[in-house]
């Protein structure tokens, strides 16, 4: 079973990595060629440029020794004072929470589509290895892995436009003012407000992009399950279950599949990190808010503070996801806990 010792050690490692990411972001600021304050202020030009650079220098504390600068940077992060976004003219923490929730909504829905379908198709593919259905599934999965998701999204959006269906954006413009802003995720907010019409509208708008984002994790899950389940089916305990005369579904889903939960959960943790790029590109095509749209808006303005904040926050998000997948791995497979 899961020991407290392991959890504490895992959390300590996660915390060390959080600190590492924050220090790394500061090193990125510090090592930028030329004056770091100039980059931090967004490469200003014009009459007020010197003033802006002075302010940035004060914010970063550049006249102090390096370890104190790093200490100030880490401290500012934990107290929630991340500065002001140059592009959005809002506190960075507000901008990031808004965009991160929008992206997470998309990613969570696409993963809850991808994982069951991927496991089901992967089991079929492993059981009928070498047969026609396995070949078809192989072709489909390699197409979905290799085709760039933004290209599929472009084709999809062109098709939708030619059919005259307009489901771009996160929510219909008429509804934006008639909803109370509670969590930032429109799906939950509409349910809290008790507006079923808004809920359906938001759900219809989120499903096409999340289906496209789901293609990659589905395909990868099919491949990994095909690979590892064929191995598991030759093990002794599966043979024993077969000799007991248990039904096939029970053998596969209850015994054999249990052995590959660690591999699958680790895979999902990794794929989540990769899929955020897909989410970023698909968001741009479907005109949704999110991390990708925030980056696209930040780059032309040289909005360096926002990008550094995003780097820290997405890094921490991945740490949380990886820690969860590690704990799932330990619960299902005691051998990992060493």
């Amino acid at each position: 079973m899961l020991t407290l010792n392991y959890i504490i050690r895992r959390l300590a490692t996660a915390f060390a990595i959080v600190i590492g990411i924050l220090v790394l972001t500061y090193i990125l600021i510090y090592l930028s060629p030329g004056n770091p304050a100039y980059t931090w202020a967004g490469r200003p030009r014009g009459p007020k440029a010197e003033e802006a650079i002075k302010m940035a220098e004060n914010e970063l504390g550049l006249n102090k020794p390096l370890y104190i600068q790093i200490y100030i940077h880490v401290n500012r992060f934990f107290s929630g004072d991340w500065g002001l976004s140059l592009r959005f003219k809002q506190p960075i923490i507000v901008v990031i929470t808004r965009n991160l929730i929008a992206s997470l909504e998309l990613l969570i829905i696409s993963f809850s589509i991808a994982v069951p379908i991927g496991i089901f198709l992967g089991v079929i593919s492993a059981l009928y290895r070498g047969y026609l259905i396995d070949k078809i599934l192989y072709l489909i999965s390699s197409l979905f892995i290799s085709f760039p998701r933004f290209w599929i999204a472009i084709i999809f959006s062109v098709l939708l436009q030619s059919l005259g269906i307009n489901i771009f954006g996160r929510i219909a413009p008429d509804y934006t003012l008639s909803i109370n802003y509670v969590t930032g995720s429109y799906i939950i907010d509409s349910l809290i407000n008790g507006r079923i019409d808004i809920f359906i509208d938001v759900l219809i708008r989120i499903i096409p992009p999340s289906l496209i984002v789901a293609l990659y994790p589905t395909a990868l899950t099919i491949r990994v399950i095909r690979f590892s389940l064929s191995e598991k089916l030759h093990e002794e305990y599966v043979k024993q279950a077969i000799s007991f005369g248990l039904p096939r579904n029970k053998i596969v889903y209850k015994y054999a599949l249990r052995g590959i939960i660690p591999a699958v959960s680790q895979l999902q943790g990794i794929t989540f990190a990769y899929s955020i790029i897909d989410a970023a590109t698909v968001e741009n095509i479907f005109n949704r808010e999110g991390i990708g749209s925030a980056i696209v808006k930040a780059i032309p303005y040289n909005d360096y503070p926002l990008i550094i904040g995003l780097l820290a926050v997405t890094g921490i998000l991945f740490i949380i996801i990886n820690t969860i997948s590690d704990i799932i791995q330990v619960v299902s497979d005691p051998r990992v806990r060493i």
Partner: protein
Amino acid sequence: MNSYVKRYSYRVKSPIRVFLGLLRFNRKFLIGFTIVLTISILSVIGLISPPYYLEGWGIVTEDAMKRQGLAPCIPFNCPSIYHLFGTDDMGRDLLSRILVGAHLALIQMVSVIITSIALGILMGVIAGYSNIYIEKIFTYVMELFIIIPSMVLAAAFITIIGRGMQSVILALILTWSPWYARLTYILVRQLRELDFIRICEAMGFPRTYIMFRHIVPNVAPLIFVEAITDSSSVLVEITSINFLIGAASLTSIDLPDWGMIVGYGVRYIRTFWWISFFPGLFIAVTAFGLILLGDGLSEYISPWLKRRWRLWF
């Protein structure tokens, strides 16, 4: 003996014979190799003589302005017999831009893959075959860099260094090399328990000698096959980041990078679909070829994956 090492152990043949055998007997490898070879030849053609050389490199010529009258829709020419894939917002021929951009995509992908394999093997071997403190430090660094999202790191490099291939390549090397480092580390930890390493240690060979003479040659082929399978994901990741740069750009982009052309064309998607469609098609076909190539190789290493079996229960 450990399962991972045992699974991948196979008889050593000369690489040329392996290659010819794969071409003859493995259909996936054959198709993938043909696609990748075609794209490489197209990239060479794009460097030597694309239909409109200057337009391919992003220069708006006077011809481009004159030629706009030939097709019915101006200035975005539809795909026609004069311009197979149409023209973009400045009247530049898209086919030449795609052909010129082919070598950029290949160069970015290959440089990322090769550098991250080299760095990853070096880091993984040092981490797996050193004392415990160095091992701890290296595994910490690996975990740290695996966590960092490549997209945001690339955006940070773009604001620091400037827009261009170098920032994307740098970001991807930093995020892909820890993968190979971790894989190498796992393999090395299994290898160092085996007899031939133990014997070398007992004979008193220096550790660096054992590392590079005995461990690296055993690890490198497996990492190499893994990297070829991953290369399609690397290509899609590079083009996705370039897509974001293209979508962020306020003015038209001169550099004929595939991802950037697609990303820049997204703003015209409602009316002029071909700007984004054709470069994306090329990305998709190249990535598909690469994944077939990698699968063919991994089928060679673990042939039981291909074998048909009877469901006997």
